[in-house]
């Protein structure tokens, strides 16, 4: 596909009102008719995606049929809880705070993570903060190999490339956070006979930026078809508070603030959106480069990166496999 002379970065512009109405109708159909549940639980992180989902659910189902759930833990930014509460207050929905730190301590999540970090940073211990980061893969042709940034209580941060066992150990331990959150979300779903709303946007869903059976688990995913920039357009239309619109995207998983670009995308999400759109619509790299304000080599590397991450994400999205198709009565 080529876009022609009229092509511009407006290609991701949507009719926010029409899209809101379409999603709202879908949520009603999914929750009430197909899932036969009485409302929705939204894990509200104070980020743009979960906030938009909370607004959409409140509009679709009624504020009295939505639970906003806050699940802070030891490494969470205090802003997440504050902003989540602000959203719940604005919407007038039920809300609950569930500190998941004791669950994570019980599962030895922090202990296991720190042991994995010490494989490459032996001095890592009490009072340290950390995050894992990727190199910039758009400027240079290289693999997506993570490094850890460890900041001692005093002194300067140290960045070390992760080995296989340290990387796997850190990821396995920190993934407990998303799975613990999901467990609590389903507690409230069971309690109120609600469905659990998933909050991934299209970039996250396509590229595997979620934890299998953690934040990847949900009963319906109302914004998974929207590019991140489209989520922002919807947010503006829905009246999401400015502070959330302006808040940089963060994973809120590590004790040092970690942008989603550092963790996964390597590109600002607006450009990543355009690259994903270009890849999905077979737009030649040279043409997409002109639209996105990138050079052609950067777009080619982004296309390769998308394909590579997509391959890894197939496992994350895969449903359980069966020996044979199992026919259930309905």
């Amino acid at each position, binding site marked *: 596909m080529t876009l022609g002379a009229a092509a511009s970065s407006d290609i991701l512009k949507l009719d926010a009102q029409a899209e809101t109405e379409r999603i709202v109708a879908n949520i009603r159909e999914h929750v009430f008719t197909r899932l036969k549940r009485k409302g929705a639980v939204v894990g509200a992180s104070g980020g743009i995606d979960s906030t938009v989902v909370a607004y959409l659910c409140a509009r679709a189902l009624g504020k009295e049929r939505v639970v906003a759930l806050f699940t802070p833990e030891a490494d969470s930014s205090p802003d997440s809880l504050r902003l989540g509460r602000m959203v719940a207050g604005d919407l007038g929905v039920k809300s609950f705070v569930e500190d998941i730190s004791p669950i994570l301590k019980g599962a030895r999540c922090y202990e296991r993570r720190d042991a994995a970090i010490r494989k490459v940073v032996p001095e890592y211990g009490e009072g340290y903060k950390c995050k894992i980061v990727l190199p910039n893969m758009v400027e240079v*042709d*290289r*693999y997506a190999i993570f490094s850890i940034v460890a900041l001692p209580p005093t002194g300067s941060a140290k960045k070390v*490339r992760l*080995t*296989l066992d340290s*990387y796997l150990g850190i990821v396995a331990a920190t993934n407990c956070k998303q799975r613990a959150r999901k467990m609590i979300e389903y507690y409230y779903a069971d309690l109120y006979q609600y469905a659990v709303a998933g909050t991934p946007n299209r970039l996250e869903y396509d590229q595997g930026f979620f934890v299998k059976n953690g934040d990847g688990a949900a009963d319906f995913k109302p914004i998974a078809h929207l590019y991140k920039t489209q989520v922002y357009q919807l947010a503006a239309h829905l009246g999401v508070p400015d502070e959330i619109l302006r808040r940089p995207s963060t994973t809120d998983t590590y004790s040092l603030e970690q942008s989603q670009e550092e963790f996964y995308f390597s590109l600002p999400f607006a450009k990543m959106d355009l690259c994903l759109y270009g890849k999905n619509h077979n737009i030649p790299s040279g043409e997409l480069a002109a639209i996105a304000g990138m050079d052609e080599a950067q777009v080619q590397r982004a296309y390769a990166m998308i394909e*590579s991450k997509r391959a890894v994400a197939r496992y994350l999205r895969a449903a359980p496999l069966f020996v044979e198709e199992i026919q259930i009565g309905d």
Partner: protein
Amino acid sequence: MSAASPIAQQIRAFIIENFLYGQEREFNNDASFLDEGIVDSTGVLQLVAFLEETYGITVEDEELTPQNLDSVNSVAAYLSRKTNPSVEAFSRDIPEARA
């Protein structure tokens, strides 16, 4: 046509054992691991650990590129340059071995 070098054979055996789970399938020694879906970025970490442990080298951050690590022959050539920088990479002489 000469046979693949012993190092290329070792690398190929490692790839088959660890990423194809011993189920040898037809792939060219010049075939891209990424394009063939054989090795992803986590797999590259495993490959790096193998190279460092087996050949006593240190793979530097800037060397973590597909040019160095994305096929049996490119890994063999990279190893040759690392272990004997004065010798020209020999991988170009390695035939396209098939399983």
